[in-house]
C-alpha cells in the first residue's frame, strides 16, 4: 500500500510517499514495526511519529487495512 509522509518523515525518505507491504489487516502498533523493518531510514523517527488512518488520528490498537489511506508525520507545528 502507498503511505503518505509529511515534514521530517518526507524529508528523511526523500519522497512524499512510500510503499509498505501489508498482508491483510493489522494494528497501528504492528504497522509501525512493519514500516521500520521495510524502511530502516525512517526507524529513528517512527517512535514519536503520529499515524493517521483515513484522515483521523489513529492509536496503537486501532486497525489498518490495505485499502485505508494511511499517513505518517511528526506532531503538528502549524498555526
Amino acid at each position, binding site marked *: 500500500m502507498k503511505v503518505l509522509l509529511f515534514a521530517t518523515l518526507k524529508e528523511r525518505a526523500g519522497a512524499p510517499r512510500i510503499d509498505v507491504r501489508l498482508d491483510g489487516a493489522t494494528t497501528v502498533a504492528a504497522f509501525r514495526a512493519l514500516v521500520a523493518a521495510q524502511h530502516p531510514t525512517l526507524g529513528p523517527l517512527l517512535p514519536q511519529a503520529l499515524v493517521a488512518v483515513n484522515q483521523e488520528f489513529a492509536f496503537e490498537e486501532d486497525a489498518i487495512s490495505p485499502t485505508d489511506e494511511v499517513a505518517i508525520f511528526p506532531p503538528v*507545528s502549524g498555526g
Partner: protein
Amino acid sequence: MTTQPEYFDITTEPIDLNALQRRVTTPLDGSVVAFVGTVRGMTPGAREPVTERLEYEAYRPMARAKLAQVAVEMRQRFDDIHGIALVQRIGDMAVGEVVVAVVVSCGHRGGGAFDAARFGIDRLKQIVPVWKKETRPDGSSWVEGDYTPRPGD
C-alpha cells in the same frame, strides 16, 4: 442568510482579513474577533533568536477536516457565536506575513467571540496537520510540535 456561516481553507494565497470579516458577519453580529498568527522574526531569549522565513506544509484534506472539527468544538463551548472562519496559509513566508487566522462573530462584544477565538487557535495548533520549517541565519530545521493527539482528537 445563515446565522452560522463557516469558512475553512488551507491555502497558498495571502490571507485577506477584510474578506474573512465579511464572511463571518451576519445581521445579528455587532462584534467580530480575529486572531492572526504572523511570522515572528525575532524571539528574544530564545536559543536561536532570529527567524528569516518559515515554510509550511499540510496534509491538506485532513487539515481541512480538522479545521471543521475545531469549529464544531468552538460551537460546543461558546453557544452564542455565529460565524467562524479558520484559514491556514501554507508555503514559504517571510517575517511579518499572516500565516493563520481565526475569525469569529457574535452579537455583542461581551459575548463568546474573544474566548472562542483563543480556544480556536489553541486547538488548531494541536490537531490540524500542518508543519513548519524555520530558516535562520545558520540554517534551517523543522519546528517540533509538542502535542500528542488523544482519542477524539
